[in-house]
Protein backbone atom coordinates (compact mmCIF):
# COMPACT_ATOMS: atom_id res chain seq x y z
CA UNK A 1 0.00 0.00 0.00
CA UNK A 2 1.42 3.35 -1.06
CA UNK A 3 0.59 6.61 0.72
CA UNK A 4 1.32 9.99 -0.84
CA UNK A 5 0.65 13.61 0.18
CA UNK A 6 -0.16 16.91 -1.55
CA UNK A 7 0.93 20.43 -0.69
CA UNK A 8 -2.73 21.12 0.12
CA UNK A 9 -2.51 18.50 2.91
CA UNK A 10 -4.52 15.70 1.36
CA UNK A 11 -3.32 12.11 1.70
CA UNK A 12 -3.97 9.41 -0.88
CA UNK A 13 -3.43 5.75 -0.22
CA UNK A 14 -3.49 3.19 -3.04
CA UNK A 15 -4.57 -0.38 -2.39
CA UNK A 16 -4.83 -2.43 -5.58
CA UNK A 17 -6.85 -0.34 -8.04
CA UNK A 18 -8.63 1.74 -5.44
CA UNK A 19 -7.23 4.85 -3.74
CA UNK A 20 -8.59 6.35 -0.51
CA UNK A 21 -8.31 10.11 0.04
CA UNK A 22 -8.53 12.24 3.18
CA UNK A 23 -6.92 15.20 4.90
CA UNK A 24 -3.79 14.85 6.99
CA UNK A 25 -3.37 14.95 10.75
CA UNK A 26 -1.65 18.31 10.32
CA UNK A 27 -4.55 19.66 8.22
CA UNK A 28 -7.19 18.73 10.80
CA UNK A 29 -5.08 20.25 13.58
CA UNK A 30 -4.94 23.53 11.66
CA UNK A 31 -8.67 23.49 10.89
CA UNK A 32 -9.78 22.79 14.44
CA UNK A 33 -13.04 21.00 15.20
CA UNK A 34 -14.60 19.85 11.94
CA UNK A 35 -18.35 20.46 11.88
CA UNK A 36 -19.40 19.69 8.31
CA UNK A 37 -18.16 17.47 5.49
CA UNK A 38 -19.40 17.10 1.93
CA UNK A 39 -18.09 14.17 -0.14
CA UNK A 40 -18.37 13.42 -3.88
CA UNK A 41 -21.01 11.08 -5.23
CA UNK A 42 -19.95 7.82 -6.81
CA UNK A 43 -19.22 8.24 -10.50
CA UNK A 44 -18.15 11.87 -10.33
CA UNK A 45 -15.11 12.66 -12.48
CA UNK A 46 -12.32 14.16 -10.38
CA UNK A 47 -9.67 16.45 -11.76
CA UNK A 48 -6.29 16.83 -10.10
CA UNK A 49 -6.13 20.08 -8.12
CA UNK A 50 -9.87 20.76 -8.46
CA UNK A 51 -12.46 20.58 -5.71
CA UNK A 52 -13.53 17.07 -4.78
CA UNK A 53 -14.97 17.53 -1.30
CA UNK A 54 -15.67 20.28 1.24
CA UNK A 55 -14.64 20.46 4.88
CA UNK A 56 -15.86 23.08 7.31
CA UNK A 57 -14.57 23.69 10.82
CA UNK A 58 -15.39 26.20 13.53
CA UNK A 59 -12.71 28.41 11.97
CA UNK A 60 -13.09 28.09 8.22
CA UNK A 61 -14.60 26.30 5.25
CA UNK A 62 -12.19 24.85 2.71
CA UNK A 63 -12.07 22.60 -0.30
CA UNK A 64 -10.48 19.20 -0.44
CA UNK A 65 -8.80 18.85 -3.81
CA UNK A 66 -8.46 15.69 -5.86
CA UNK A 67 -4.78 14.66 -5.54
CA UNK A 68 -4.87 13.04 -8.99
CA UNK A 69 -7.25 12.56 -11.92
CA UNK A 70 -9.81 9.79 -11.64
CA UNK A 71 -13.36 8.86 -10.75
CA UNK A 72 -15.02 8.85 -7.33
CA UNK A 73 -16.41 5.45 -6.41
CA UNK A 74 -17.56 6.08 -2.85
CA UNK A 75 -17.96 9.00 -0.44
CA UNK A 76 -17.56 8.23 3.25
CA UNK A 77 -21.06 8.60 4.70
CA UNK A 78 -19.62 8.05 8.18
CA UNK A 79 -17.77 11.41 8.16
CA UNK A 80 -20.84 13.17 6.77
CA UNK A 81 -22.86 11.80 9.68
CA UNK A 82 -20.11 12.35 12.25
CA UNK A 83 -17.57 14.99 11.14
CA UNK A 84 -15.63 14.54 14.39
CA UNK A 85 -14.06 11.42 12.81
CA UNK A 86 -11.92 13.79 10.72
CA UNK A 87 -10.38 15.10 13.95
CA UNK A 88 -10.14 11.83 15.85
CA UNK A 89 -8.86 9.60 13.05
CA UNK A 90 -7.97 11.75 10.02
CA UNK A 91 -5.83 9.17 8.29
CA UNK A 92 -8.09 6.21 9.17
CA UNK A 93 -11.84 6.20 9.74
CA UNK A 94 -11.96 9.90 8.84
CA UNK A 95 -11.26 9.28 5.12
CA UNK A 96 -13.32 11.37 2.66
CA UNK A 97 -13.71 9.32 -0.52
CA UNK A 98 -12.42 6.40 -2.57
CA UNK A 99 -11.48 6.78 -6.21
CA UNK A 100 -10.05 4.96 -9.18
CA UNK A 101 -7.04 6.54 -10.85
CA UNK A 102 -6.88 7.62 -14.47
CA UNK A 103 -3.12 7.41 -14.40
CA UNK A 104 -1.48 5.73 -11.39
CA UNK A 105 1.88 7.20 -12.41
CA UNK A 106 0.56 10.60 -11.23
CA UNK A 107 1.16 9.42 -7.67
CA UNK A 108 4.90 9.59 -8.33
CA UNK A 109 4.60 13.37 -8.53
CA UNK A 110 3.30 13.61 -4.96
CA UNK A 111 5.26 13.64 -1.68
CA UNK A 112 6.04 10.51 0.31
CA UNK A 113 5.82 10.48 4.12
CA UNK A 114 9.36 11.79 4.67
CA UNK A 115 8.98 14.58 2.11
CA UNK A 116 5.61 15.59 3.56
CA UNK A 117 6.94 15.65 7.12
CA UNK A 118 9.72 17.97 5.96
CA UNK A 119 7.15 20.09 4.08
CA UNK A 120 5.00 20.49 7.22
CA UNK A 121 8.08 21.34 9.27
CA UNK A 122 8.81 24.10 6.76
CA UNK A 123 5.36 25.60 7.26
CA UNK A 124 6.35 26.93 10.67
Amino acid sequence: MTIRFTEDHEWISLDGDVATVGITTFAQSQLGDVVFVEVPEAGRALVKGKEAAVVESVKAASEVFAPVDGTAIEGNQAVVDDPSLVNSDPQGAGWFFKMTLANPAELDGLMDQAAYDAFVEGQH
Partner: protein
Amino acid sequence: MNTQGRKTTPDAETAAGTDVGTYTGNRGLVHEEPLIFELDNPGVTGVDLEAAPAVTSRLGGLKARAGIGLPGLSEPTVVRHYTRLSQKNFGIDSTMYPLGSCTMKHNPRLNEKLARLAGFSDIHPMQPQSTVQGALELIDQLAHWLKTLTGMPAVAMSPAAGAHGELCGLMAIRAALQARGETGRTRVLVPESAHGTNPATAAFCGFTVDAIPAEANGRVSVEAVKAKLGPDVACIMLTNPNTCGLFEPQVKEIADAVHAAGGYFYCDGANYNAIVGRVRPADLGVDAMHINLHKTFSTPHGGGGPGSGPVVLSDALAPYAPLPYVVHGADGLRLVEHAADAEGRPFGRMKAFHGQMGMFVRALAYILSHGADGLRQASSDAVLNANYVKARLQDVMSVPFDGYCMHEALFDDRFLKDTGVTTLDFAKAMIDEGFHPMTMYFPLVVHGAFLIEPTETEPKATLDQFIGAMRHLAGKAKAGDAAHFLAAPRYTPRRRLDETGAARKPVLRWTPPAA
Protein backbone atom coordinates in the same frame (compact mmCIF):
# COMPACT_ATOMS: atom_id res chain seq x y z
CA MET B 1 -17.05 54.44 56.63
CA ASN B 2 -19.40 57.23 55.70
CA THR B 3 -21.01 59.53 58.29
CA GLN B 4 -23.82 57.09 58.97
CA GLY B 5 -21.44 54.26 59.70
CA ARG B 6 -22.14 52.32 56.52
CA LYS B 7 -19.19 50.70 54.86
CA THR B 8 -18.13 52.44 51.64
CA THR B 9 -15.55 49.89 50.62
CA PRO B 10 -16.28 46.33 49.57
CA ASP B 11 -15.53 43.56 52.02
CA ALA B 12 -12.71 41.14 51.35
CA GLU B 13 -14.88 38.44 49.84
CA THR B 14 -16.44 40.79 47.29
CA ALA B 15 -13.15 42.41 46.49
CA ALA B 16 -11.65 39.03 45.69
CA GLY B 17 -14.47 38.49 43.21
CA THR B 18 -15.56 35.27 44.84
CA ASP B 19 -18.56 33.88 43.05
CA VAL B 20 -20.80 32.72 45.87
CA GLY B 21 -23.72 31.81 43.63
CA THR B 22 -27.28 33.10 44.14
CA TYR B 23 -30.60 31.54 45.03
CA THR B 24 -32.24 32.91 41.85
CA GLY B 25 -29.41 32.27 39.43
CA ASN B 26 -29.45 36.01 38.70
CA ARG B 27 -26.15 37.84 38.97
CA GLY B 28 -26.78 41.16 40.66
CA LEU B 29 -29.36 42.97 38.59
CA VAL B 30 -28.50 40.87 35.53
CA HIS B 31 -31.33 38.37 35.38
CA GLU B 32 -31.22 34.81 34.24
CA GLU B 33 -33.69 35.16 31.37
CA PRO B 34 -35.79 32.24 30.16
CA LEU B 35 -37.17 32.05 26.62
CA ILE B 36 -40.51 33.77 26.23
CA PHE B 37 -42.10 30.38 25.55
CA GLU B 38 -40.83 29.15 28.89
CA LEU B 39 -42.67 32.07 30.55
CA ASP B 40 -45.96 30.73 29.18
CA ASN B 41 -48.82 30.98 31.64
CA PRO B 42 -51.78 29.51 29.74
CA GLY B 43 -54.84 31.71 29.72
CA VAL B 44 -53.02 34.91 30.65
CA THR B 45 -53.32 37.71 28.12
CA GLY B 46 -52.52 41.39 27.85
CA VAL B 47 -55.87 42.28 26.32
CA ASP B 48 -59.42 41.17 27.03
CA LEU B 49 -61.02 40.03 23.83
CA GLU B 50 -64.61 38.94 23.45
CA ALA B 51 -65.05 35.29 22.62
CA ALA B 52 -65.00 34.93 18.84
CA PRO B 53 -68.48 34.54 17.32
CA ALA B 54 -69.34 31.23 15.70
CA VAL B 55 -68.47 31.29 12.01
CA THR B 56 -69.14 29.00 9.11
CA SER B 57 -65.91 27.72 7.66
CA ARG B 58 -65.35 28.35 3.98
CA LEU B 59 -62.09 26.42 3.93
CA GLY B 60 -63.64 23.31 2.36
CA GLY B 61 -63.16 21.15 5.41
CA LEU B 62 -59.55 22.28 6.09
CA LYS B 63 -58.93 22.69 9.79
CA ALA B 64 -55.99 23.76 11.92
CA ARG B 65 -54.39 20.60 13.26
CA ALA B 66 -53.21 22.22 16.49
CA GLY B 67 -53.01 25.54 18.27
CA ILE B 68 -50.34 27.97 17.08
CA GLY B 69 -48.44 27.75 20.35
CA LEU B 70 -48.31 31.39 21.39
CA PRO B 71 -47.42 31.73 25.08
CA GLY B 72 -49.89 33.29 27.51
CA LEU B 73 -48.31 36.44 28.93
CA SER B 74 -49.32 39.67 30.61
CA GLU B 75 -48.05 42.99 29.29
CA PRO B 76 -45.61 43.66 32.17
CA THR B 77 -44.10 40.20 31.74
CA VAL B 78 -43.51 40.86 28.05
CA VAL B 79 -42.09 44.34 28.68
CA ARG B 80 -39.67 43.06 31.32
CA HIS B 81 -38.61 40.10 29.19
CA TYR B 82 -37.63 42.24 26.22
CA THR B 83 -36.17 45.02 28.36
CA ARG B 84 -33.91 42.53 30.12
CA LEU B 85 -32.89 41.01 26.79
CA SER B 86 -32.06 44.48 25.46
CA GLN B 87 -29.88 45.07 28.53
CA LYS B 88 -27.86 42.00 27.65
CA ASN B 89 -27.34 43.26 24.12
CA PHE B 90 -23.90 44.46 23.14
CA GLY B 91 -23.52 46.91 20.30
CA ILE B 92 -21.64 49.90 19.02
CA ASP B 93 -23.62 52.01 21.50
CA SER B 94 -22.02 49.99 24.34
CA THR B 95 -18.34 50.40 23.52
CA MET B 96 -15.70 49.83 20.84
CA TYR B 97 -16.65 47.06 18.42
CA PRO B 98 -13.44 46.42 16.46
CA LEU B 99 -14.79 43.75 14.12
CA GLY B 100 -12.54 43.88 11.04
CA SER B 101 -14.17 44.29 7.62
CA CYS B 102 -17.41 45.35 9.32
CA THR B 103 -16.85 49.09 9.87
CA MET B 104 -18.75 49.28 13.14
CA LYS B 105 -18.81 53.06 13.40
CA HIS B 106 -21.08 55.21 15.52
CA ASN B 107 -24.60 55.69 14.14
CA PRO B 108 -25.30 59.42 14.55
CA ARG B 109 -28.58 60.18 16.31
CA LEU B 110 -29.35 62.93 13.81
CA ASN B 111 -29.78 60.18 11.19
CA GLU B 112 -32.31 58.46 13.42
CA LYS B 113 -34.27 61.65 13.94
CA LEU B 114 -34.52 62.29 10.20
CA ALA B 115 -35.40 58.69 9.38
CA ARG B 116 -38.38 59.04 11.70
CA LEU B 117 -39.84 62.04 9.87
CA ALA B 118 -43.36 61.05 8.87
CA GLY B 119 -42.70 61.88 5.21
CA PHE B 120 -40.11 59.10 5.14
CA SER B 121 -41.31 56.64 7.75
CA ASP B 122 -45.08 56.64 7.24
CA ILE B 123 -45.21 56.18 3.48
CA HIS B 124 -45.94 53.02 1.51
CA PRO B 125 -44.13 51.84 -1.59
CA MET B 126 -47.43 51.35 -3.42
CA GLN B 127 -48.86 54.80 -2.89
CA PRO B 128 -49.05 57.10 -5.94
CA GLN B 129 -45.64 58.48 -6.88
CA SER B 130 -47.03 62.01 -7.03
CA THR B 131 -47.54 61.79 -3.24
CA VAL B 132 -43.95 60.69 -2.44
CA GLN B 133 -41.93 63.16 -4.46
CA GLY B 134 -39.81 64.01 -1.42
CA ALA B 135 -38.85 60.39 -0.90
CA LEU B 136 -37.97 59.96 -4.56
CA GLU B 137 -35.90 63.13 -4.42
CA LEU B 138 -34.03 61.75 -1.44
CA ILE B 139 -33.21 58.54 -3.35
CA ASP B 140 -32.12 60.65 -6.30
CA GLN B 141 -29.91 62.91 -4.16
CA LEU B 142 -28.27 59.96 -2.43
CA ALA B 143 -27.64 58.38 -5.83
CA HIS B 144 -26.04 61.64 -6.96
CA TRP B 145 -23.68 61.62 -3.97
CA LEU B 146 -22.72 57.97 -4.44
CA LYS B 147 -22.00 58.57 -8.12
CA THR B 148 -20.00 61.72 -7.38
CA LEU B 149 -17.93 60.12 -4.60
CA THR B 150 -17.10 57.07 -6.72
CA GLY B 151 -16.87 58.87 -10.07
CA MET B 152 -19.19 56.26 -11.56
CA PRO B 153 -21.95 57.19 -14.04
CA ALA B 154 -24.76 55.01 -12.66
CA VAL B 155 -25.96 53.37 -9.47
CA ALA B 156 -28.47 50.62 -8.70
CA MET B 157 -30.03 51.56 -5.37
CA SER B 158 -32.18 48.53 -4.59
CA PRO B 159 -29.74 45.79 -3.40
CA ALA B 160 -30.37 44.98 0.24
CA ALA B 161 -26.80 44.51 1.50
CA GLY B 162 -23.24 43.74 0.46
CA ALA B 163 -23.63 40.20 -0.84
CA HIS B 164 -26.88 41.18 -2.55
CA GLY B 165 -24.94 44.03 -4.17
CA GLU B 166 -22.30 41.56 -5.35
CA LEU B 167 -25.06 39.48 -6.89
CA CYS B 168 -26.45 42.59 -8.59
CA GLY B 169 -23.02 43.43 -10.00
CA LEU B 170 -22.41 39.92 -11.28
CA MET B 171 -25.90 39.70 -12.79
CA ALA B 172 -25.19 42.96 -14.63
CA ILE B 173 -21.89 41.49 -15.85
CA ARG B 174 -23.63 38.29 -16.95
CA ALA B 175 -26.27 40.35 -18.80
CA ALA B 176 -23.57 42.41 -20.51
CA LEU B 177 -21.72 39.25 -21.57
CA GLN B 178 -24.91 37.73 -22.91
CA ALA B 179 -25.61 40.92 -24.86
CA ARG B 180 -22.11 40.61 -26.35
CA GLY B 181 -22.85 37.00 -27.23
CA GLU B 182 -19.97 35.84 -25.06
CA THR B 183 -21.66 33.18 -22.99
CA GLY B 184 -18.42 31.17 -22.93
CA ARG B 185 -17.02 33.52 -20.29
CA THR B 186 -17.75 31.36 -17.28
CA ARG B 187 -14.70 31.84 -15.04
CA VAL B 188 -14.46 34.44 -12.25
CA LEU B 189 -11.09 35.28 -10.69
CA VAL B 190 -11.14 35.74 -6.92
CA PRO B 191 -8.04 36.36 -4.78
CA GLU B 192 -7.45 33.97 -1.88
CA SER B 193 -7.86 36.83 0.60
CA ALA B 194 -11.38 37.70 -0.64
CA HIS B 195 -14.46 37.85 1.54
CA GLY B 196 -16.21 34.46 1.38
CA THR B 197 -19.21 36.13 -0.21
CA ASN B 198 -17.23 36.77 -3.43
CA PRO B 199 -16.76 33.13 -4.49
CA ALA B 200 -20.23 32.35 -3.12
CA THR B 201 -21.78 35.06 -5.30
CA ALA B 202 -19.89 33.92 -8.39
CA ALA B 203 -20.93 30.31 -7.84
CA PHE B 204 -24.54 31.33 -7.13
CA CYS B 205 -24.52 33.23 -10.44
CA GLY B 206 -23.42 30.09 -12.29
CA PHE B 207 -19.75 30.97 -12.74
CA THR B 208 -16.79 28.82 -11.75
CA VAL B 209 -14.35 30.34 -9.27
CA ASP B 210 -10.61 30.45 -9.88
CA ALA B 211 -8.47 31.54 -6.92
CA ILE B 212 -5.55 33.94 -7.33
CA PRO B 213 -2.81 33.31 -4.77
CA ALA B 214 -1.68 36.23 -2.60
CA GLU B 215 1.86 37.55 -2.83
CA ALA B 216 4.19 37.43 0.17
CA ASN B 217 3.38 41.11 0.82
CA GLY B 218 -0.35 40.41 1.16
CA ARG B 219 -1.26 41.95 -2.18
CA VAL B 220 -2.43 40.65 -5.55
CA SER B 221 0.08 41.08 -8.36
CA VAL B 222 -0.77 41.95 -11.95
CA GLU B 223 1.42 39.04 -13.09
CA ALA B 224 -0.62 36.56 -11.04
CA VAL B 225 -3.82 37.95 -12.57
CA LYS B 226 -2.42 37.89 -16.11
CA ALA B 227 -1.44 34.24 -15.64
CA LYS B 228 -5.09 33.43 -15.02
CA LEU B 229 -6.67 35.58 -17.75
CA GLY B 230 -8.17 34.04 -20.84
CA PRO B 231 -11.12 34.20 -23.23
CA ASP B 232 -13.29 32.37 -20.68
CA VAL B 233 -12.84 34.94 -17.88
CA ALA B 234 -16.00 36.92 -17.09
CA CYS B 235 -14.56 39.18 -14.42
CA ILE B 236 -12.27 39.60 -11.46
CA MET B 237 -13.66 40.29 -7.99
CA LEU B 238 -11.12 42.36 -6.10
CA THR B 239 -11.42 44.08 -2.74
CA ASN B 240 -9.58 47.36 -2.33
CA PRO B 241 -8.27 48.03 0.24
CA ASN B 242 -8.06 44.27 0.58
CA THR B 243 -9.00 42.13 3.57
CA CYS B 244 -5.45 42.40 4.96
CA GLY B 245 -6.17 46.13 5.34
CA LEU B 246 -3.73 46.92 2.52
CA PHE B 247 -4.21 49.07 -0.57
CA GLU B 248 -3.68 47.17 -3.82
CA PRO B 249 -1.04 49.32 -5.57
CA GLN B 250 -1.37 47.48 -8.89
CA VAL B 251 -5.14 47.80 -9.03
CA LYS B 252 -5.12 49.99 -12.15
CA GLU B 253 -2.77 47.67 -14.03
CA ILE B 254 -4.93 44.72 -12.97
CA ALA B 255 -8.06 46.50 -14.23
CA ASP B 256 -6.38 47.32 -17.54
CA ALA B 257 -5.22 43.73 -17.99
CA VAL B 258 -8.69 42.35 -17.23
CA HIS B 259 -10.31 44.83 -19.63
CA ALA B 260 -7.77 44.04 -22.36
CA ALA B 261 -8.72 40.37 -21.98
CA GLY B 262 -12.41 41.24 -22.41
CA GLY B 263 -13.42 40.83 -18.75
CA TYR B 264 -14.97 43.17 -16.21
CA PHE B 265 -13.71 44.43 -12.85
CA TYR B 266 -16.02 43.91 -9.87
CA CYS B 267 -14.73 45.72 -6.81
CA ASP B 268 -15.90 44.55 -3.39
CA GLY B 269 -16.63 47.88 -1.72
CA ALA B 270 -16.84 46.55 1.85
CA ASN B 271 -13.69 48.49 2.72
CA TYR B 272 -14.69 51.71 0.98
CA ASN B 273 -14.60 53.55 4.32
CA ALA B 274 -10.81 53.68 3.99
CA ILE B 275 -10.79 55.71 0.79
CA VAL B 276 -13.96 57.86 0.64
CA GLY B 277 -13.05 61.32 -0.62
CA ARG B 278 -9.50 60.16 -1.39
CA VAL B 279 -9.86 57.67 -4.21
CA ARG B 280 -12.59 57.46 -6.84
CA PRO B 281 -13.15 53.81 -7.78
CA ALA B 282 -13.93 54.90 -11.36
CA ASP B 283 -10.32 56.08 -11.65
CA LEU B 284 -9.18 52.55 -10.74
CA GLY B 285 -11.05 51.05 -13.69
CA VAL B 286 -13.92 49.59 -11.68
CA ASP B 287 -17.00 48.40 -13.61
CA ALA B 288 -19.19 47.61 -10.61
CA MET B 289 -18.82 48.10 -6.87
CA HIS B 290 -21.27 47.72 -4.04
CA ILE B 291 -21.32 50.29 -1.29
CA ASN B 292 -22.36 49.08 2.15
CA LEU B 293 -24.37 52.06 3.38
CA HIS B 294 -24.48 50.24 6.72
CA LYS B 295 -20.69 50.33 6.97
CA THR B 296 -19.34 53.35 5.18
CA PHE B 297 -22.30 55.66 5.68
CA SER B 298 -23.12 54.76 9.28
CA THR B 299 -26.51 53.12 8.99
CA PRO B 300 -27.09 50.60 11.81
CA HIS B 301 -26.25 46.95 11.23
CA GLY B 302 -25.50 43.76 13.05
CA GLY B 303 -29.04 43.28 14.31
CA GLY B 304 -29.73 47.00 14.53
CA GLY B 305 -31.26 47.35 11.13
CA PRO B 306 -31.29 46.06 7.59
CA GLY B 307 -28.22 46.57 5.45
CA SER B 308 -28.25 48.44 2.18
CA GLY B 309 -25.91 47.77 -0.72
CA PRO B 310 -26.28 50.13 -3.69
CA VAL B 311 -24.06 49.19 -6.65
CA VAL B 312 -22.29 51.81 -8.75
CA LEU B 313 -21.89 50.82 -12.39
CA SER B 314 -19.65 51.86 -15.28
CA ASP B 315 -20.98 52.95 -18.69
CA ALA B 316 -20.45 49.38 -19.89
CA LEU B 317 -22.78 47.92 -17.27
CA ALA B 318 -25.21 50.80 -16.64
CA PRO B 319 -27.72 49.70 -19.34
CA TYR B 320 -28.31 46.43 -17.45
CA ALA B 321 -29.05 48.03 -14.06
CA PRO B 322 -32.03 46.45 -12.30
CA LEU B 323 -35.47 47.99 -11.98
CA PRO B 324 -36.79 50.17 -10.52
CA TYR B 325 -34.81 53.40 -10.67
CA VAL B 326 -35.63 57.08 -10.32
CA VAL B 327 -35.72 59.37 -13.37
CA HIS B 328 -36.57 63.04 -13.82
CA GLY B 329 -39.81 63.25 -15.80
CA ALA B 330 -41.96 66.10 -17.08
CA ASP B 331 -44.11 66.01 -13.93
CA GLY B 332 -41.36 65.56 -11.40
CA LEU B 333 -39.53 62.43 -10.33
CA ARG B 334 -40.79 58.94 -11.09
CA LEU B 335 -39.71 55.33 -10.79
CA VAL B 336 -39.06 53.35 -13.95
CA GLU B 337 -40.66 50.04 -13.02
CA HIS B 338 -41.01 48.09 -16.27
CA ALA B 339 -38.44 46.93 -18.81
CA ALA B 340 -40.55 48.34 -21.65
CA ASP B 341 -40.29 51.76 -20.04
CA ALA B 342 -36.49 51.57 -19.55
CA GLU B 343 -33.85 53.09 -21.77
CA GLY B 344 -31.41 50.23 -21.31
CA ARG B 345 -31.93 46.49 -20.95
CA PRO B 346 -32.45 45.94 -17.20
CA PHE B 347 -31.69 42.39 -16.13
CA GLY B 348 -34.66 42.30 -13.77
CA ARG B 349 -35.30 43.22 -10.16
CA MET B 350 -33.34 42.64 -6.97
CA LYS B 351 -36.20 43.47 -4.61
CA ALA B 352 -39.94 43.96 -4.74
CA PHE B 353 -39.56 47.72 -4.41
CA HIS B 354 -36.86 50.41 -4.53
CA GLY B 355 -34.63 49.30 -1.62
CA GLN B 356 -34.13 50.20 2.05
CA MET B 357 -35.74 53.62 2.32
CA GLY B 358 -34.92 54.12 6.01
CA MET B 359 -31.25 53.42 5.32
CA PHE B 360 -31.24 55.83 2.38
CA VAL B 361 -32.45 58.59 4.71
CA ARG B 362 -29.77 57.81 7.30
CA ALA B 363 -26.99 57.59 4.72
CA LEU B 364 -27.91 60.88 3.09
CA ALA B 365 -28.20 62.52 6.51
CA TYR B 366 -24.69 61.27 7.27
CA ILE B 367 -23.32 62.49 3.95
CA LEU B 368 -24.95 65.93 4.16
CA SER B 369 -24.00 66.45 7.80
CA HIS B 370 -20.36 65.61 7.03
CA GLY B 371 -20.09 67.34 3.68
CA ALA B 372 -17.38 66.48 1.17
CA ASP B 373 -14.58 67.66 3.45
CA GLY B 374 -16.03 65.81 6.44
CA LEU B 375 -16.26 62.55 4.53
CA ARG B 376 -12.64 62.90 3.47
CA GLN B 377 -11.67 63.63 7.08
CA ALA B 378 -13.60 60.56 8.27
CA SER B 379 -11.76 58.16 5.95
CA SER B 380 -8.44 59.74 6.91
CA ASP B 381 -9.21 59.39 10.61
CA ALA B 382 -10.27 55.76 10.11
CA VAL B 383 -6.86 55.03 8.56
CA LEU B 384 -5.08 57.02 11.28
CA ASN B 385 -6.85 55.11 14.07
CA ALA B 386 -6.00 51.73 12.54
CA ASN B 387 -2.36 52.72 12.14
CA TYR B 388 -2.28 53.94 15.74
CA VAL B 389 -3.50 50.53 16.91
CA LYS B 390 -1.00 48.77 14.66
CA ALA B 391 1.92 50.95 15.75
CA ARG B 392 1.17 50.52 19.44
CA LEU B 393 0.66 46.75 19.31
CA GLN B 394 3.22 45.54 16.79
CA ASP B 395 6.01 45.15 19.37
CA VAL B 396 3.96 42.74 21.52
CA MET B 397 1.85 41.05 18.84
CA SER B 398 3.07 39.90 15.40
CA VAL B 399 2.32 41.59 12.09
CA PRO B 400 2.30 39.54 8.89
CA PHE B 401 2.89 42.55 6.65
CA ASP B 402 5.14 45.47 7.56
CA GLY B 403 4.40 49.09 6.83
CA TYR B 404 1.30 51.24 7.07
CA CYS B 405 -2.16 49.74 6.84
CA MET B 406 -5.39 51.30 5.67
CA HIS B 407 -8.54 51.18 7.83
CA GLU B 408 -7.81 47.92 9.66
CA ALA B 409 -4.79 46.45 11.39
CA LEU B 410 -3.98 42.78 10.82
CA PHE B 411 -2.00 40.60 13.22
CA ASP B 412 -1.22 36.88 13.12
CA ASP B 413 -0.74 34.37 15.94
CA ARG B 414 3.04 33.92 15.80
CA PHE B 415 3.33 35.89 19.06
CA LEU B 416 1.28 33.13 20.72
CA LYS B 417 3.54 30.32 19.47
CA ASP B 418 4.24 27.78 22.22
CA THR B 419 2.09 29.69 24.76
CA GLY B 420 -0.79 27.19 24.60
CA VAL B 421 -3.10 30.14 23.84
CA THR B 422 -4.96 30.36 20.53
CA THR B 423 -6.50 33.36 18.82
CA LEU B 424 -9.89 32.09 20.00
CA ASP B 425 -8.75 31.89 23.64
CA PHE B 426 -7.30 35.39 23.38
CA ALA B 427 -10.63 36.67 22.02
CA LYS B 428 -12.51 35.12 24.94
CA ALA B 429 -10.22 36.92 27.38
CA MET B 430 -10.93 40.20 25.55
CA ILE B 431 -14.62 39.73 26.36
CA ASP B 432 -13.75 39.66 30.08
CA GLU B 433 -11.92 42.96 29.53
CA GLY B 434 -15.15 44.44 28.14
CA PHE B 435 -14.34 44.43 24.43
CA HIS B 436 -16.13 42.74 21.60
CA PRO B 437 -13.40 40.66 19.93
CA MET B 438 -12.01 41.60 16.56
CA THR B 439 -12.58 39.45 13.48
CA MET B 440 -10.68 36.19 13.97
CA TYR B 441 -9.24 33.59 11.61
CA PHE B 442 -9.97 35.86 8.64
CA PRO B 443 -8.47 36.58 6.18
CA LEU B 444 -7.47 32.96 5.64
CA VAL B 445 -4.14 33.92 4.07
CA VAL B 446 -2.83 34.73 7.56
CA HIS B 447 -2.43 32.14 10.33
CA GLY B 448 -4.71 32.72 13.35
CA ALA B 449 -5.63 36.20 12.12
CA PHE B 450 -6.66 39.11 14.37
CA LEU B 451 -8.31 41.72 12.13
CA ILE B 452 -8.93 44.96 14.04
CA GLU B 453 -10.94 47.83 12.56
CA PRO B 454 -11.41 50.63 15.08
CA THR B 455 -13.12 53.11 12.68
CA GLU B 456 -12.82 56.87 12.91
CA THR B 457 -15.46 57.29 15.59
CA GLU B 458 -13.37 55.79 18.41
CA PRO B 459 -11.82 58.47 20.63
CA LYS B 460 -8.15 58.14 21.57
CA ALA B 461 -9.06 57.35 25.18
CA THR B 462 -11.00 54.26 24.09
CA LEU B 463 -8.25 53.18 21.70
CA ASP B 464 -5.70 53.57 24.52
CA GLN B 465 -7.80 51.43 26.84
CA PHE B 466 -8.18 48.79 24.13
CA ILE B 467 -4.46 48.86 23.37
CA GLY B 468 -3.70 48.63 27.09
CA ALA B 469 -5.93 45.57 27.42
CA MET B 470 -4.35 43.90 24.37
CA ARG B 471 -0.83 44.57 25.66
CA HIS B 472 -1.81 43.25 29.07
CA LEU B 473 -3.22 40.05 27.56
CA ALA B 474 -0.28 39.55 25.20
CA GLY B 475 2.05 39.88 28.20
CA LYS B 476 0.03 37.41 30.23
CA ALA B 477 0.09 34.86 27.39
CA LYS B 478 3.83 35.18 26.91
CA ALA B 479 4.40 34.95 30.67
CA GLY B 480 2.91 31.45 30.58
CA ASP B 481 -0.48 32.19 32.10
CA ALA B 482 -2.42 30.06 29.61
CA ALA B 483 -4.92 29.14 32.31
CA HIS B 484 -6.19 32.73 32.33
CA PHE B 485 -7.17 32.37 28.69
CA LEU B 486 -8.44 28.80 28.72
CA ALA B 487 -10.92 29.67 31.50
CA ALA B 488 -12.18 32.83 29.76
CA PRO B 489 -14.71 34.31 29.59
CA ARG B 490 -15.38 34.46 33.33
CA TYR B 491 -17.65 37.48 33.72
CA THR B 492 -20.27 36.80 31.05
CA PRO B 493 -23.75 35.40 31.80
CA ARG B 494 -22.52 32.17 30.22
CA ARG B 495 -18.95 30.86 30.24
CA ARG B 496 -17.24 29.34 27.17
CA LEU B 497 -19.92 28.14 24.77
CA ASP B 498 -19.64 24.84 22.91
CA GLU B 499 -19.22 26.22 19.39
CA THR B 500 -18.39 22.81 17.98
CA GLY B 501 -21.47 21.19 19.49
CA ALA B 502 -23.61 24.10 18.28
CA ALA B 503 -22.33 23.62 14.73
CA ARG B 504 -22.45 19.83 14.70
CA LYS B 505 -25.80 19.43 16.42
CA PRO B 506 -27.60 22.76 16.14
CA VAL B 507 -30.84 23.13 18.08
CA LEU B 508 -32.70 25.71 16.06
CA ARG B 509 -36.18 25.37 17.46
CA TRP B 510 -37.53 25.36 20.98
CA THR B 511 -39.78 22.45 21.79
CA PRO B 512 -41.88 22.23 24.93
CA PRO B 513 -40.53 19.88 27.56
CA ALA B 514 -42.30 16.53 27.63
CA ALA B 515 -45.22 16.72 30.04
